[in-house]
């Protein structure tokens, strides 16, 4: 069955926290897909066709079919989203955007977390797995709301012991 993309008990989903309405997001998404599909057409058309290879069908046909399908589906989505946007604009006034909220630390915590994860991945290769993991565990715990030092240190210790224990000692897999 479908994976559970749901709010955990007591945790509200923030799917619509963004200041942009759904139709705008869908319009943006469909434009991105159309642009990406058009860009992918360039290398696709350079692939050998059926006449250029020994097999009956060349490596170009299948990706070409998929790109045409992607263009068709995303154009359909674009038209439908535009139609719905016009309907919504005709019936309702847009709510003022929550600009001040979007600049706060709480609203950008996920991007900060991703930046820290990228930094961790780079750091791991420079200073080694163990030290980078301790720094990362402390920083992310703090970012996610932990303020009690006992809890932060416990998270770092659990992370190191769990990963070393499972990957290195139990499964014999080398760490980055």
């Amino acid at each position, binding site marked *: *069955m*479908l*994976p*559970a*993309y*749901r709010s*955990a008990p*007591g945790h*509200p989903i*923030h*799917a619509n*926290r963004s200041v942009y309405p*759904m139709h705008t997001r*869908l319009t943006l*998404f469909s434009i991105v*897909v159309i642009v990406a599909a058009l860009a992918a057409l360039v*290398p696709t058309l350079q*692939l*050998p066709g059926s006449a250029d290879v020994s*097999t*009956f*069908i*060349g*490596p170009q046909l*299948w*990706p070409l079919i*998929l*790109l045409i399908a*992607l263009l068709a*589906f*995303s154009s*359909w*989505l674009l038209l439908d989203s535009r139609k719905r946007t016009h309907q919504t604009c005709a019936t309702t006034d847009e709510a003022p955007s929550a600009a001040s909220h979007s600049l706060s630390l709480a609203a950008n915590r*996920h991007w900060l*977390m*991703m930046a820290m*994860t*990228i930094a*961790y*991945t780079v750091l791991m*290769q420079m200073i080694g797995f163990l030290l980078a993991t301790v720094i990362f*565990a402390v920083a992310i*715990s*703090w*970012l*996610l*709301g*932990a303020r009690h030092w006992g*809890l932060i240190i416990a*998270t770092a210790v*659990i*992370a190191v012991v*769990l*990963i070393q224990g499972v*990957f290195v000692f139990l*499964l014999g*897999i*080398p*760490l*980055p």
Partner: protein
Amino acid sequence: MLDSFLAGLSVVLQPMNLLILTSAVFIGFIGGALPGISGVILVVILLPVTYGMEPTQAFMLLTAIYGSTVFSGLITAILYRAPGTPEAVMTSFDGYPMTQQGEAGKALGIGILSSAVGGLVGTIALIVCTPLLASVALKFSSPEYFALAILGLTVVASLGGRLILGLIGAAMGLFIATIGIDPLTGVSRYTFGNLNLSEGVGLIPVIVGLFAVSEVMKRSLDGEVHQPPTRVKVKIFDMPILRKIGVTLSRSSLLGVIIGILPGIGASTAAMVSYSETVRWSKHPEQFGKGAAEGIAAPESANNAAAMGALVPLFALGIPGSGTTAIILGAFIMHGLQPGPLFMMTSADLIYAVFAGLFIVNFMILAFSKPFIALFTRLLNVPYSVLGPIIIMCCIVGTYSVSNSMFDVWLMLGFGVLGYLLEKIDFPTVSIILGLVLGPIAESELRRTLSMSQGDLSILLSRPISATLLIISVVLLVAAIAVPLRKRARIRATASRS
């Protein structure tokens, strides 16, 4: 068949394998209980870990987690009216009213027993139906396999949300699957000279990124909210209740199996259909929604039976019956195995060990659910500031460990950001996985089909099995488009009348 099953049972009963199964059941229980971790995410996180394990043990672990997660969704549905999994939504209709009436223990007992019965019926159907379906599928050739891949892709219709987004996702996944060296001609496609892409985009970076990393990003926005602790005394075997729900259990389990085997319908639909059928057959339909025992028994037995039923097309035909089984199919491919009719012959030992493991898991659910529920309220209070960093680190190390490649880690982080952004538009990300998993089969079998027929596509409709499979695919897609349109038209008609 019985001999193979008994051989599988002897494998499962080895101490190490029993330990793996027990761990899997507890991991699955946690999947439905801990905030921010779903069963699928646990399967995804453990995928790289299973890479270093024997295939039999790896798939016993993954399928047992899958089975026990379907069960554990009922706990939060009954106690907090917050279904742990989509399959448990219907359970909350009568489960939560019973909790409000002070009968949470009774409701949980009915749910546990119904899950175990449904799971057992589903497992028996899995053991009986899989070899039968696989023996039919042995007659398949390229056109039939291509039609099967298309049928597998119609699962997008059951993923919820808008169908057009599912279709875009499936096309994106199919396209990503073309990256790398074309196996039939040796031509490099979309590698741009990068050797890391020669073998294509790995399943692990995509799955871990789209599911686990994006989930942590999403959850990092939430504050630390905890549920109030709840103490309940669970009673599983209650004879008067058993007599009351006996017929419902049998009917709903059978319904669940049938619905589960059909690709693209899924355990949530099974739960809904069996609930509405139970209301229709009941002498007291007015009691439903107010704490009726049958209202818990019907969806719980059906969704667990359907979850097992969804494994039948996976093992017999090599096509996933649902989103989660698409990820399990990805795990098989990652281990160098391709489920399907030939797989039934070449890897019967592995398959029957997995079947036997699932059989045992249902008894383990009965045995371990009571102590787990006692621990459950404490687990709910584990803060996300502890879980979040550990999940991210497991994702990074797990992805790296599959092929010792930092390129895969970067790819995983990229897909994590993509997954997060896609969730903003309620995109069914699992459709990308479906496309990625079924892409190589669909492309190679289509090319072989066209070679067989010298480019004549009508071969797909002139062969009875491929024609039937394609017609079923079209019917499923048309139904997915027509049902919401009819619903919308009905709402409009009602609104215009009033």
